[in-house]
């Protein structure tokens, strides 16, 4: 994909830090990536890789104390979200950029009916009468295919199953026709058959609404099924960025390749499941050189001292943060 059209969302050197015992440590380290119009960009990584913090930084939803965006830009429709006032920011949230989370139960108000919650979101963002908002809420529930939506409007979140709650969240997120949807592990808590339903629905709605989607997940299977492009994160930075086909056919970073080899597959035997030794470094103990070097079988002496840049792998659009990777991908 060439980068001629203007990105829907453009992260440039985004750096987010957390304070631990009076010292600041980066959880997101100079992340640069563009989300193109109508694109699904998957951000994949293990826990602690900084993928959720990236999404929260975009919408500036991090706690005021103990977290800060230390640098970089988040460009959206010509403005830098990092520099906006809180007031300007809240007109972006939900309106132009919406977000859905892993656990819908904690994001829904247990004391309000589902219909009232969706209607409230519509009233706040789009104004109009309560009647209109309620009608729109009903339309949205129909759109996300909740069975018997009319009676469901007057029910409470606890009366919904996990998959239904996630669909309610999606309905709320769509209420204002956002340009960009940030989806943070939206199907992780769901059973596989429900996951498949929600994923295909997100894909359909993305097309219908002309949205771009930043899809955060730890599941490479889900990535393969929905993504156009993939950013692999490790220890707060992007270590590989490629189209979904290139990433799975020819992984260039040793970490990406190792992840693929560590994943047991349901569709074929995995005799040689290869664990990755060690674990993801703690926020306060990220190595100085390549952050993956301590676990990497290909490491050379320079890897421990020199921090590698994210550079072109030689294939167009395929970026990798590893100078010693074997030519032709890591297999």
């Amino acid at each position, binding site marked *: 994909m060439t980068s001629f059209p203007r990105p829907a969302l453009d992260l440039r050197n985004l750096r987010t830090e957390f304070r631990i015992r009076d010292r600041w440590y980066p959880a997101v380290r100079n992340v640069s990536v563009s989300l193109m119009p109508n694109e699904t960009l998957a951000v994949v990584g293990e826990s602690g890789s900084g993928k959720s913090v990236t999404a929260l930084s975009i919408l500036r939803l991090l706690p005021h104390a103990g977290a800060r965006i230390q640098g970089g830009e988040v460009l959206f429709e010509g403005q830098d979200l990092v520099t906006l006032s809180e007031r300007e920011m809240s007109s972006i949230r939900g309106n132009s950029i919406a977000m859905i989370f892993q656990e819908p139960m904690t994001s829904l108000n247990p004391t309000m009916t589902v219909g009232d919650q969706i209607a409230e979101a519509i009233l706040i963002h789009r104004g109009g009468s309560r009647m209109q908002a309620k009608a729109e809420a009903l339309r949205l529930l129909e759109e996300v295919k909740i069975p018997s939506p009319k009676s469901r409007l007057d029910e409470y979140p606890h009366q919904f199953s996990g998959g239904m709650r996630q669909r309610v969240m999606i309905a709320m997120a769509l209420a204002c026709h956002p340009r960009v949807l940030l989806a943070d592990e939206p199907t992780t808590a769901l059973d596989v058959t429900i996951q498949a339903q929600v994923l295909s629905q997100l894909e359909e709605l993305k097309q219908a609404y002309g949205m771009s989607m930043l899809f955060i997940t730890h599941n*490479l299977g889900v990535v*393969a099924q929905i993504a*156009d492009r993939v950013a692999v994160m490790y220890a707060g930075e992007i270590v590989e960025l490629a189209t979904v086909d290139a990433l799975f056919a020819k992984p260039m970073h040793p970490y990406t390749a190792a992840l693929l080899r560590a994943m047991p597959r349901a569709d074929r035997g995995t005799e040689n499941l290869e664990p990755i030794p060690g674990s993801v470094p703690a926020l306060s103990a990220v190595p100085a050189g390549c952050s993956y070097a301590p676990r990497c079988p290909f490491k050379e002496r320079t890897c421990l001292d020199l921090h590698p840049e994210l550079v072109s792998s030689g294939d167009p659009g395929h970026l990798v943060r590893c100078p010693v990777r074997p030519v032709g991908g890591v297999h």
Partner: protein
Amino acid sequence: MTTSLGNGDFIVRNLSKTFVRHGGSGARCVRAVDDVSFRVPKGTSLGLVGESGCGKSTVARAILRLIEPDSGSIVFDGIDVRAAKGAALRALRRRMQIVFQDPYSSLNPRRTIRQTLEEPLRVHLRISSKEIREKAEAAMVEVGLPREALERYPHEFSGGQRQRIGIARALVLDPELVVADEAVSALDVSVQAQILRLLEGLRERRGLSFLFVSHDLGVVRHFCDRVCVMYLGRIVEEGPTVDVFDRPLHPYTRLLRDSYPVPDPRARRPLVQIVGEVPSAANPPPGCGFHPRCARADGLCSVERPQLETVSDDRARACYDPEATDVAWGGLRIGAR
């Protein structure tokens, strides 16, 4: 070691468990496990897969009598587990251990790892303190943790390390059967592979039998010789794992398999029509529990419940459909290509 009455096999027949909830509007019954039978031959691993609420965890707990089953028989190495009492039950418990999903909530935060590992030894074995110490240390080493870690508390460990401790706790008593209830589900891929490796090593070295409860088909395919697929408290299909996943005979197995996202973008294909959600076990549909979601259901399916019947040498399914739904893998297509 133990005087053996049988051949080390673990056999469950017609196991059932109903939970009764007393609420404002009278008692509500949930038939969590309904007439479940299976066998785990010594040294093999049997997978139990299904979605949340299908009863797989209840089976895991009921066979260890952590929950008392209502009916059915459980026989381990020729001994009737349900009839066992007192010392006999204690002896059985030593031979059958469980590893839980969440290593955060299954370890006592106020006890050192040593206290956690040594307690079962004191309860079950009449051996000296020195031997107890040595056994705890040996278990730690076996799961790949340093001896010094014994003096530390659970919060000092990562998720993967805690799961190793959970496994060490199950191992100290030298069990013969290990029930693993979603034992690797909470872990990141790289750590999950480490733990699977560890369990494989233990199975080979110690000849352990496993009942491996999981919702992850990939993990089950990797680890289990045979698999039972559960839906609404019943086993709907049983057979060698590879055959069941590659050529499912029950429409639900096929749905489950085709919903599983395959890590290969070339394997996207049109989404199978998935209708509805798993019905509540408190109010199961009549006939076959799967018929409201099944594309191939006909009149009989909504009236009479199909029994689990042997189809070929080593496969069984509970379905009336005369045509085996034998469809090769492809993964489902979700994204537009």
